[in-house]
């Protein structure tokens, strides 16, 4: 059990907790702009080359993308559950929920990796083996560049999140957090949900292309 005292610049622990959360919200605002710049660029090109993006988008792996969406959404549930358990001082369940969260994150990365292999087999990886299919033109490759850059950067964010979740899972098991103090978990929860939300935007931008009707 660690002693519960705020750092010297804070009057109270509650003040410190809400300040930490504000800090994460502000950080997430910067992340919105970071991913926003990329997604904005993507839509500019998609508007410029609608047909080519539709054609290229048909080669994405909708099933794998959907599985991954389900995995991440579930992981956000377990993330939130861990916080609820900590609030009730159910430390064992809280730690378990965190481990499951990390596990779901790993599963996402595994599926993503498999998807990349499939992409490679379909000759859609720029630089390595990209081939234009019938009626495709060079802008189709732009689509795949965005696909790899965006999902790659997302995967980096998710990996950071997984490491943080694992660290906090061990901390929770060693009773560093309790109903009296669990601020880091809430802050991490914000980050995790954000990475989840980014995926939803990427999924919507990438996978349904050219599949309507």
């Amino acid at each position, binding site marked *: 059990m660690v002693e519960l005292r705020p*750092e*010297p*610049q*804070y009057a109270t622990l509650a*003040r410190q907790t*809400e*300040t930490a959360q*504000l*800090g994460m919200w*502000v*950080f997430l*605002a*910067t*992340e*919105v*702009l*970071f*991913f*926003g*710049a*990329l997604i904005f*660029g993507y839509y*500019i*090109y998609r508007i*410029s*080359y609608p047909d*080519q993006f539709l054609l290229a988008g048909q080669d994405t792996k909708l099933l794998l993308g959907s599985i991954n969406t389900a995995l991440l959404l579930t992981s956000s549930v377990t993330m939130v559950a861990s916080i609820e358990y900590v609030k009730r001082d159910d430390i064992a369940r809280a730690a378990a929920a965190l481990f499951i969260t990390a596990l779901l994150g790993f599963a996402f990365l595994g599926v993503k990796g498999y998807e990349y292999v499939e992409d490679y087999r379909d000759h859609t990886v*720029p*630089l390595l083996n990209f081939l234009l299919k019938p009626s495709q*033109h*060079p*802008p189709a*490759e*732009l689509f795949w*560049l*965005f696909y790899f*850059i965006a999902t790659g950067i997302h995967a980096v964010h998710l990996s950071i999140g997984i490491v943080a979740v694992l660290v906090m899972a061990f901390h929770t098991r060693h009773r560093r957090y309790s109903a009296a103090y669990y601020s880091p978990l809430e802050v991490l929860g914000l980050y995790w949900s954000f990475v989840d939300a980014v995926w939803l935007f990427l999924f919507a931008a990438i996978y349904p292309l050219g599949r309507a009707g």
Partner: protein
Amino acid sequence: MTAIAEPVDSYLTAESTIASWLLTKDHKRIALLFFASVTAFFFVGGFAATLIRLNLINPSGTLLGPDLYNRMFTMHGIVMVWFFLIPSIPATLGNFLVPLMIGARDLAFPRLNLASWYVFNISGAMAIYFIVAGGVDTGWTFYTPYSTLFSNSHVMAAALAVFVNGFSTIMTALNFVVTIHRLRAPGMTWFRLPLFIWSIYATSIVMLLATPVLAMTVLLIALEHGLGIGIFDPALGGDPLLFQHMFWFYSHPAVYIMILPAMGVASELISCFARRPVFGYKGMAYAVMAIAIIGFFVWGHHMFVAGISTFAGVMFSFMSFIVAVPSAIKVFNWTATLHRGSISFDAPMLYALSFIGLFTIGGLTGLNLATLPIDVHVTGTYFVIAHFHYIMVGGTVSAFFGGLHYWWPKITGRLYPEMWARAAAILTFLGFNVTFFPQFILGYLGMPRRYYAYPPEFQVWNVLSSAGASILAIAYVMPLVYLGWSLLWGKQAGANPWGATGLEWRTTSPPPEHNFDRTPVVTEAPYRYNPEDGSYVTQDGVANG
């Protein structure tokens, strides 16, 4: 002045091991660490500027030749923008003063603050690497497709250095925003905040919203340069103009990152040395926020001749005029503050006054440039160079030096030699104008920027500019000497040598590690100076004189 006693246990003397500095979480020590780093880079960037000015003395430009000249102005731009100007006032004076001015013990996240310094130095080491390895020849703007597909210089290292540098900017800005929101002393309402705090707050907002876009942009540039394929590649249908939009979406607001803190410093200095409250305090606070917000919608004025539509050009021109309005409000309010003031011309005030003058010239020529037809005439010429150096060097660097002198007694506990400082301030003003005013003329006559050689008829103005640069160089080295001297032999400053009203003057100089023995309670608006009798009331309600 009140009785002067050296505080027994200041933040400087609390611990003296090297580790106590390198692992410090004290915002005041981190400010000094940043000060050391940005000063070093100021002289790195200055070195490149020196070579540029030496090269341009001769129309044939044989000193550097074309390739080396390209690398020098690129190095000058990258180093000065990201490694000096952007962090200059926020990371040094801001770091030191934000907690003191709002009556806090430290920033909200001290470890993040220290991390910011380390990240800055990592990016600095990357910058040194790309310089030593042979430099970059793209200009600080990294325009594609040259930067990505053609340049054989160290674009990737430079772009990644800028990328990492952005993390440092964001960490510091995040700390400031959260601190100003959450750690203000009792009674320190938003409209009792000193204008320096308002300007740091506005700056931090711009840093937080603009820097991530730059990060993404330079990351894409680095990838494209490294892999030889990327989203700006015209062969794939990629659009180099998209790069310019993304780059200027950051880099125009970056100008406000540089100038807003300088405006904050100027407000503090002018009010104190005119012994009058800042005229139109609320207007000044709203104006910095307006500049920060409107500044996000003017980036297209860097692209008038790049091939954007006439409609877009007109809109960006219009917005650029709009952003001049709050800037003008600030200039008028500073001069109105001076009106009927009891003005003393101490060195900080000299810097502040030259800030107003030079910023005004820089700002008004900005309106010239925002006017579509004039811009077509002078775009890419020395007129542009002169314009933004009036803002960035005449404005920001003047305010930085002014603030440094003003708060030097607080930071070090020592007074600097006033006469030397005044001489340096005047020399800075003269040297600056001799350096950059001729460049307005050169630009108007049609001399393009970034050329290593030029027709002989431009030589007179170029020699004049180079001569001015040598004056400027002396004026910039002087403070290093006499401020260093004052550390050892300067007189003890006392808590409040200027008779100023801010909370930072309500603790000892240098302050103790914990800033205030008791958390101050704020009862007064800032700047309660009385020009009639020189009296003043501090923000925690103590009447003096």
